[in-house]
């Protein structure tokens, strides 16, 4: 009840609820006018950013073997740490669209082949060096070079040439790409002095904080960068990241007040956690999805009818309810959902044992299908597989489940065996998601999807600057993927974060990843 009142008060302060309405609701809930007014003034005091203090973050996903080199970052801790000390050229606007960061502005040529980024002036790195377009060029060069190990290599592929001209950083692409700005928001692409070529893991950048203590897999302490250019970011005096991989321990740390925010609250217990008076559970519907992938070039999955039988044989709503505990949404056998900028709702495919049985009969296949799974592919994957087995069984499909060890799942099973459970974190744009995994020549074409029409449309859509046409093209591609592809995507998982009521400034987001796309510790503040 009190939490509801606090919420109403914050709405009133934010102007989303009139004062009179607020007092009316408060009276209806049994609050006296005095206590309601008190609540309102408290909320007003907490409304604006406050400076100072140390925000502590408990974060899952990180180990002692992590490196500070942004090129090698592959988990949530790496994303979060990089955000503290470094900045990319652009940032995802939580409401959709792009915010300028180190690139003050940008423009594309009419054919979306040549992009010019105007680099912000007067920004210095934490080692005192002034940011120039040459640093940007060197950074991009390091991530796209022949001998790079960068996780961002995939998105740097289409670049033909790059150069720095005065204050401008100019990119020329092989083929037009209207989405380039979205790609450059990738956290791997934090701008480093001379591109980090001297010492990529030095942690020197232009970010709002400067790393003071680094213990990989344990703890990171960063203090406010006194020369940071943007006042709206970095309210706390210091930020302390504590790596807490154990789910129960992470939630306990939040409950006991040892940390102010955590990522990845386990969906099973999220509702219980939200009931605690000092904690809010924040959810963001994201592009991440839990999937079953079939190789479309390997028997028996090279049979379109068998694929359709399996797609009709899965109960999506049941998986969302039982595996995600409702913290997510049903998928439609395409990797795209409403968190993408140019999303179109297609007709939803439902669980239909009759249709599944029909397609099974059409396929002429009458054996058992082997599905490989492990908890490492996504949390609850073996349970999800068992549910799939049941719902498919009702349609006469004999699904056999093999549980694989967590260890080495990504190297031995995923992208290797013809049918297994997997996870995709999603990408900022449809083009990038499709290019990464569904283009015939994609590096991680984990469904072995090979469709000429799809490939042509993808390339054409990249250069299409008319948004209406482009949206239609993506809708068509999703339809092809849904009907022809090897992807069974039953559900999109929400990002579920836990935030203490001691911090203010949480932003509800339509795009981006967990913890406000990892900007939460910097955007939020300690309410005095």
């Amino acid at each position, binding site marked *: 009840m009190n939490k509801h009142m606090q919420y109403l008060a914050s709405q009133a302060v934010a102007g989303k609820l009139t004062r009179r309405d607020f007092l009316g609701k408060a009276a209806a809930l049994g609050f006296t006018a005095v206590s309601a007014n008190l609540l309102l003034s408290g909320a007003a005091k907490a409304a604006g950013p406050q400076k100072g203090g140390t925000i502590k973050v408990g974060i899952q996903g990180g180990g002692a073997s992590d490196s500070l080199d942004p090129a090698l970052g592959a988990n949530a801790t790496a994303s979060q740490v990089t955000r503290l000390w470094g900045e990319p050229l652009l940032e995802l606007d939580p409401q959709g669209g792009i915010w300028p960061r180190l690139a003050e502005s940008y423009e594309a040529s009419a054919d979306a082949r040549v992009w010019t980024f105007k680099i912000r002036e007067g920004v210095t790195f934490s080692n005192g060096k002034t940011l120039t377009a040459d640093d940007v060029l060197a950074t991009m060069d390091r991530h796209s070079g022949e001998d790079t190990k960068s996780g961002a290599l995939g998105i740097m592929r289409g670049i033909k040439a790059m150069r720095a001209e005065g204050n401008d950083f100019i990119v020329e692409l092989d083929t037009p790409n209207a989405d380039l700005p979205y790609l450059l928001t990738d956290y791997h692409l934090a701008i480093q002095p001379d591109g980090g070529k001297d010492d990529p893991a030095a942690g020197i950048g232009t970010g709002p904080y400067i790393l003071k203590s680094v213990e990989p897999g344990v*703890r990171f302490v960063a203090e406010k960068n006194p020369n940071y250019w943007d006042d709206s970011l970095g309210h706390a005096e210091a930020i302390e990241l504590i790596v807490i991989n*154990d789910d129960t321990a992470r939630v306990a740390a939040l409950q006991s007040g040892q940390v102010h925010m955590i990522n990845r609250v386990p969906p099973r217990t999220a509702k219980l956690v939200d009931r605690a008076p000092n904690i809010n559970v924040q959810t963001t519907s994201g592009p991440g999805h839990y999937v079953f992938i079939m190789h479309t070039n390997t028997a028996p999955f090279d049979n379109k009818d068998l694929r359709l039988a399996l797609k009709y044989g899965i109960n999506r709503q049941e998986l969302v309810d039982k595996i995600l505990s409702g913290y997510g949404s049903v998928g439609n056998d395409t990797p795209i959902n409403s968190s993408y900028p140019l999303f179109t709702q297609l007709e939803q495919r439902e669980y239909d044992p009759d249709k599944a049985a029909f397609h099974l009969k059409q396929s002429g296949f009458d054996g058992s299908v082997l599905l490989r799974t492990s908890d490492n592919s996504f949390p609850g994957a073996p349970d999800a597989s068992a549910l799939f087995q049941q719902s498919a069984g009702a349609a006469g499909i004999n699904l056999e489940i093999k549980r694989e060890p967590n260890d080495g799942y990504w190297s031995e099973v995923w992208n290797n065996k013809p049918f297994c459970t997997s996870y995709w974190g999603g990408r900022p744009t449809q083009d990038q998601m499709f290019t990464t995994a569904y283009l015939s020549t994609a590096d991680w074409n984990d469904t072995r999807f090979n469709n000429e029409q799809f490939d042509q449309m993808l390339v054409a859509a990249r250069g299409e600057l008319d948004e209406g046409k482009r949206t239609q093209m993506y809708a068509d591609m999703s339809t092809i993927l849904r009907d022809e592809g090897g992807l069974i995507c039953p559900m999109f998982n929400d990002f579920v974060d836990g935030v203490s009521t001691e911090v203010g400034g949480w932003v509800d987001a339509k795009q981006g990843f967990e913890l406000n796309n990892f900007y939460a510790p910097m955007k939020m503040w300690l309410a005095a």
Partner: protein
Amino acid sequence: MGPALKLVAQRIALGLLLLLAVSALIFAGTMILPGDVAQSILGQSATPEALANLRAELGLNDPPVQRYFEWLFNALQGDLGTALTNGRSITESIGQRLSNTLFLAFWAAVVAVPLAIFLGLLAVRYKDRWPDKLISAVTLASISIPEFLIGYMLMYLIAVKLRWFPSVSMINDSMSFLEKLSSIALPVAVLTLVVLAHMMRMTRAAILNVMQSAYIETAELKGLSGFQVIYRHAFPNAVAPIVNVVMLNLAYLVVGVVVIEVVFTYPGMGQYLVDHVSKRDVPVVQACGLIFAAVYIGLNLIADVVSILSNPRLRHPK
């Protein structure tokens, strides 16, 4: 050289030989892990180019025998190499982690060992009466519950509800000694509960065994009180088996506390090892394995040496 010293020297030589054999086993063992380092480091986001580049850079193409001897030679000089995954010096990282683990193990031992021996003595003194039964019941219950569950229960009660001690046992150099102690209070409590039963019961059994000897009867006939008989006459003769079980539990406190370290987010050796095993960071896994083996062999060696030296027949050769 007396027979005692000769036995001790033999035992030490045997320990060193064992360590060498273990080092070869560790090296061979890490070779047969599925998957490879490069793939594991880059995870799901590995491109074929990135993989090939990383593999070449990490020297994964040299023959294993050559790599074993290079590794052993460097390890003997205190150089454990650098972690493949992040290029940090393993000796440095392990130095910090090992001192954390030893810190936790030390305080757990400081609480658990005297407590276990005292409870063991108490149980013998009141054999088959209610203190004996109570001690047995409580310690057996605590050893039967999985340690992570004890951890979670204490965390919920003491950290979340009562807020006496923190649930995250993070320790670092900027903390005062008292802050560090308060930080590790919960894991120390869990570890104490976990190792108590074993040591207590061994103490009880060893002393009861001695209590059946003729000289104990003599001591009783002399008119000594129950505790004096146990403390002055029975305990010294039961030292060898007690030291043995104490050392076994100390070894466990150093090498076996992975679960507790994960539950309480304690930056010790166990977590360090687990993080690197999942990334196939072979040099780190080997280094940790070697250190764990050395600790285990060392503590067992101490137990043996104490047993040998506490044997009067060897101390006073005819």
